[in-house]
């Protein structure tokens, strides 16, 4: 019998809310956090909308010595970790240092920091490159900085699988808890809203070029024309259920009950793509039947081909219109490796409050046999939720979260 791994704390920084409470309230109200890019002048580019975390002033949340050595997304991540620990009521100095770890997902590292230093190097010379460049941009930076800030000396890791990373980090964190760790900070907080990051996103040909925040990101809609990138995400406190009980954890949001991951066949292959099997693996891992899932949080690529594959996978596993499906990321955009852990947070809050958040702005295409929760939240008992995430290139992951027992 393996130990249940539970989530006891949530830290969120999202384009439509700072903190889990604000994010959740905004999400249930259908508040859209997507807008015209403010961090640089987007007018030369064919896509100009993003989900930026508003009102975040790093100096209000972090010691000043951390500011020059961190990228924007690392600052967001440090604050998310702090809020998640506070939410869980964890005082790291009261726990055994080697039993606490940090496992995060990253997509492109501290890319804005990296752009500045590349610019210094090529426009001024090597002596102008920051002493912090050696670590401030690399993929491992968030795990390193969080472990240092909170004295966590247990397992540390970083996974990169694009948009699927937020689930893969949680899957790996659960494995480390089963191996004996008591607490792992996990999930993803990401972002690369800088000109150099923006042109990399543009290169995919998958960005929406709309200038209307309510019309730009429309998964499962006949008008689906690509997505809007965003920044932020969620970090979660995962604990061994027994350890959480012993330390007197004040709330348990739910259990990470199942996890599965697959990779798509090579492009051009006629073999089925991987999302269906990832969902089935997660259900099997949770020892649950499809009928026990009360809501699916979709990846929601908003590219017709990807939407079709995902809808077909959901329909194949659950049956036509047999399970409520939602994609509240229409209100924040796709947050790289931060997206999926934010969806886990939303799924856990759905369980807590008995409500499924809406997929805003979308008119469901008749092509899809999905019960997509549109426009307004739907009151519903949620005992278990499935979260799906698909990363660029063929990464498919799924997580089942279940109400605390």
């Amino acid at each position, binding site marked *: 019998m393996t130990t249940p791994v539970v989530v006891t704390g949530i830290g969120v920084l999202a384009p439509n809310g700072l903190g889990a409470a604000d994010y959740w309230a905004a999400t249930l109200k259908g508040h859209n956090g997507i807008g015209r890019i403010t961090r*640089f*002048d987007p007018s*030369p*580019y064919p896509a100009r909308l993003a989900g930026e975390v508003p009102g975040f002033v790093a100096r209000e949340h972090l010691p000043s010595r951390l500011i020059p*050595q961190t990228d924007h997304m690392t600052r967001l991540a440090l604050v998310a970790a702090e809020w998640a620990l506070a939410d869980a009521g964890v005082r790291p100095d009261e726990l055994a240092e080697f039993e606490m*770890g*940090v496992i995060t997902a990253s*997509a492109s590292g501290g*890319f804005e920091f*990296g*752009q500045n230093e*590349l*610019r*210094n*190097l*090529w*426009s001024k*010379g*090597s002596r102008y490159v*920051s*002493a912090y*460049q*050696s*670590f401030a941009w*690399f*993929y*491992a*930076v968030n*795990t*390193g900085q969080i*472990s*240092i800030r909170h004295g966590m*000396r*247990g*397992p*540390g890791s*970083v*996974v*990169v*699988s694009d948009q699927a990373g937020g689930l*893969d980090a949680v899957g790996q964190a659960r*494995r480390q808890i089963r191996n004996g760790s008591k607490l792992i900070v996990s999930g993803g907080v990401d972002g690369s809203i800088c*000109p150099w*990051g923006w*042109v*990399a996103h543009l*290169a*995919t040909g998958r960005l929406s070029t709309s200038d209307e925040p309510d019309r730009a990101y429309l998964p499962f809609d006949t008008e689906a024309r690509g997505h809007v990138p965003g920044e932020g995400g969620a970090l979660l406190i995962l604990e061994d259920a027994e350890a959480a009980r012993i330390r007197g954890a004040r709330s348990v949001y739910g259990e990470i009950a199942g996890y599965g*991951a*697959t*990779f798509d*066949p090579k*492009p051009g292959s006629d*073999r089925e793509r*991987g999302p269906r099997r990832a969902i089935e693996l997660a259900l099997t891992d949770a020892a649950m039947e499809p009928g026990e899932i009360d809501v699916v949080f979709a990846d929601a690529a908003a590219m017709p081909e990807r939407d079709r594959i995902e809808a077909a996978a959901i329909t194949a596993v659950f049956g036509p219109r047999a399970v409520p499906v939602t994609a509240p990321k229409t209100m924040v955009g796709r947050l790289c490796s931060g997206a999926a852990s934010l969806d886990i947070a939303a799924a856990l809050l759905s369980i807590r409050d008995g409500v499924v958040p809406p997929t805003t702005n979308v008119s469901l295409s008749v092509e899809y046999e999905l019960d997509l929760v549109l426009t307004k939240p739907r009151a519903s008992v949620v005992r278990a939720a499935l979260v799906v995430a698909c*990363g*660029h*290139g*063929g*990464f498919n992951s799924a997580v089942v979260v279940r109400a605390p027992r």
Partner: protein
Amino acid sequence: MRRRVVITGVGVLAPGGVGVKEFWSLLSDGRTATRTITFFDPSPFRSRVAAEIDFAPAAHGLSQQEIRRMDRAAQLAVVATRAAVGDSGVELTELDPCRVGTAIGSAVGATMGLEEEYRVVSDDGRLELVDHEYVVPHLYNHFVPSSFAAEIAWAVGAEGPAIVVSTGCTSGLDSVGHACELIRDGSVDVMIAGATDAPISPITVACFDAIKATTPRNDDAEHASRPFDGTRNGFVLGEGAAVFVLEDMDSAQRRNAHIYAEIAGFAARCNAFHMTGLRPDGRELAEAVRVALDEARMSAEDIDYVNAHGSGTKQNDRHETAAFKRSLGEHAYRTPVSSIKSMIGHSLGAIGSIEIAASVLAIEHNVVPPTANLHTPEPECDLDYVPITAREWHTDTVLTVGSGFGGFQSAMVLTRAGRSTS
């Protein structure tokens, strides 16, 4: 009963020679592959030495299209993957593709490709609002290095879990450790696991210059990497890839595969101290060693050889020596310890996997590779570092470790197949 994980295929591309045979020949001869940087004009930089690979991707079967879309690090990894799969003799097409996974370590991803593209779209740094009209279609693959895992999965037709593990300089140990856990818990039957990095580019050289982490010994490039030596003054940047085929021991034995070694134990710990600094006492690395030994159900005395991180920086070699004493006790003085970075430099995230390759070859040949360029002992580094010359040494069990920026500390125990009792 827990599944046991073995290495049945090895592919290595390291400075000084492409392929396992050339790699081992360099190490066992104690030759060095460090030289003055040739990839770009190094004259503006403080450290102008590196360990470069003479690598022609087309000669290794990569198509023009693959060469165009892949960063050098991905190219190295794909070539190493094909070599490893060929070496193992495993017939991947006979397996359920969903039971074959991919885990690739890389510290800095497609940093070379990114820098080249940045120069184009920014007009060498003149434009802050970089020009999207000049963007190559595969830029996103450089931007998010999970593309490395994708390339490898495509190369072998794997459809199981695929991931890039990026924990700085321990990436190459952590990716293999991760792969091992996936086989043990039954998620997959076969893993293609390893690591790659190709960081020898101006931005990487500049960032290590800025903190004086790399050596300024530019007048003696061949002998610039001096782990554990009293005159050491920084590491030498390298590049490379090593990829392994990992299987559960029962299936490997059923198909009569050649088994290089069993991965008996692995652990990764954070030092939670400083992004680039190390506490001199080596406490967290020692803890990783202790946990890895525990997982292997072995004691310090079972270790025949320690393949050290041995980067050649003042602080690392001191830190690591202290960690070995702390975790292995008196046995630390009796067991040979060596650093192959003295010969092939430090390829950041790749080196952990390259050092796993050196470790399994030490078991295979009963030979311990030396620490080249070690002439001047110093009091803080007082273990048996196998200076200059390789040593014939009965080697059943190897401890290999890594330590890096971000505070990551990892340890792995590899043992001759059939020896472990776990």
